[in-house]
């Protein structure tokens, strides 16, 4: 579904990605883990063309998207859906208008069909009946759910989650983790989850990619990651900073 080959990205003077190679197969849930600031979100934004690499290739369904101009990426982006870290709801629109936005933009005009599909999407994220609320009236967890409803309403083939549980309490995080898993089963989509939350990673992943020092340091099954004796991986999983008191 998504292939990344020798991806390099420099932001300012810092080379954030230093030759990332990654293969995400259709239907799987791949979790990309790593320390804060290691370039996970930067990598994810390359999958949907929000960032252009310094060098390397990003292939989505076999097509290299890196040379495509912004206007030609529009159709490709409709195959992918992204949940942003901040949910990125349009604050001038209510919940219903936010979720209906991709439908209207894709040319759907029938108000009844739009209403039904919005209600269905809200039902999938356990927010039935919240259509008329404004984003400012929603909690962090609800905003993420509405963002997710807006992402899935147009039925993309692949869902990209950028830190889906960051800033949420443990119960809301757990609820989002279950939701990711449930949507993956119900919609049979490919999912890519960027997180540094171990619980999210082990709960949702079919495979885990560990991003370290700008490269994919480990890519395999969650059980293999847990069993690893590599110092960098163990320190990350167990949360050892290496600092002494």
């Amino acid at each position: 579904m998504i292939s990344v080959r020798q991806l390099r990205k420099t932001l300012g003077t810092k080379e954030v990605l230093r030759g990332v190679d990654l293969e995400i197969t259709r239907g799987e849930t791949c979790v990309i883990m790593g320390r804060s600031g290691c370039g996970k979100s930067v990598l994810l934004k390359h999958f949907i063309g929000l960032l252009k690499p310094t060098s390397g290739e990003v292939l989505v369904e076999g097509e290299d998207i890196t040379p495509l101009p912004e206007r030609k990426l529009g159709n490709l982006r409709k195959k992918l859906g992204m949940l942003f870290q901040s949910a990125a709801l349009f604050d001038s629109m209510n919940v219903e208008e936010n979720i209906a936005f991709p439908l209207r933009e894709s040319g759907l005009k029938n108000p009844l069909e739009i209403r039904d599909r919005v209600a269905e999407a809200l039902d999938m994220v356990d927010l039935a009946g919240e259509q008329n609320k404004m984003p400012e009236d929603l909690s962090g967890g609800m905003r993420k759910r509405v963002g997710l409803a807006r992402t899935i309403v147009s039925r993309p083939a692949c869902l990209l989650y950028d830190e889906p549980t960051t800033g949420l309490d443990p119960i809301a995080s757990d609820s989002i983790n279950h939701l990711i898993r449930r949507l993956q089963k119900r919609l049979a989509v490919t999912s890519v989850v960027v997180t540094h939350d171990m619980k999210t990673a082990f709960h949702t992943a079919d495979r885990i990619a560990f991003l370290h020092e700008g490269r994919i340091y480990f890519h395999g099954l969650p059980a293999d990651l847990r069993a690893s004796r590599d110092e960098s991986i163990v320190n990350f999983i167990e949360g050892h900073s290496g600092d002494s008191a």
Partner: protein
Amino acid sequence: MLTTLGRTALSLLQYLGELAALAYETCVSIVVAPIRWRLLMRQIVEVGWRSQMVVLVTGAFTGAVLTAQTYFQFSRLGMKSAVGSVVAVAMFRELGPVLTALMVSGRVGAAIAAEIGTMKVTEQIDALRALGVHPTDYLVVPRVLAMLLSMPLLVAECCAVSIISSYLVGVHLLDISGPYHIQNTLRYVGSRDLKMALTKGFVFGIVIVFIACHQGLNTKNGAVGVGRAPTEAVVIGSLSVLILNFFLSFALNIIFPGGV
């Protein structure tokens, strides 16, 4: 010294290049993407309709005070009847377009930069792109078209209300003869002055809206950046209007020469 000058010149060129690229992208967008009529109507209300009060008050009081000052000078020379035409020509050819542009830059330019800037730092623009919507189509085009439609009308309103206020102050408050005031105004003001006012309004509208959209789209550094974007949009927009007005006055005076 030379290095600093060179750096300033380069950054100015880069800035102008970015503005030109945005203008080009907007033209492409107008041609290839469908116009979002609902957004355009909303922006016309925001840019045109809601700016009327500030523009009308500006025009009315500028016309009034200009009439009074011109009267105080001209009355000594026995040229009271020329006050109306001087005020009208000044308003049409210079003050109407410039003052309207400055007020619109302060009200609308700041609002555009703040709104788009907030969307930028809260990832709403990335969300638009991720949903397959080009930000220029959705955010810039409706604002540009609304400004291009609204600015000439706002300038015309400003000039019209200033002439009315000039008549009221000159004839009813000062002792200018009404018929002479009207006759001289009509004699010395022609369609060339109106065309100059509307052309300036159109050009200033383009400058204000692209500067504001550019500031918004390039907002960085969270809340600090959102605070800075409208300020810079107003400062750069206002200075650009004032500088451009100088060159535009010379150029348009060739196309629409003044005098009878």
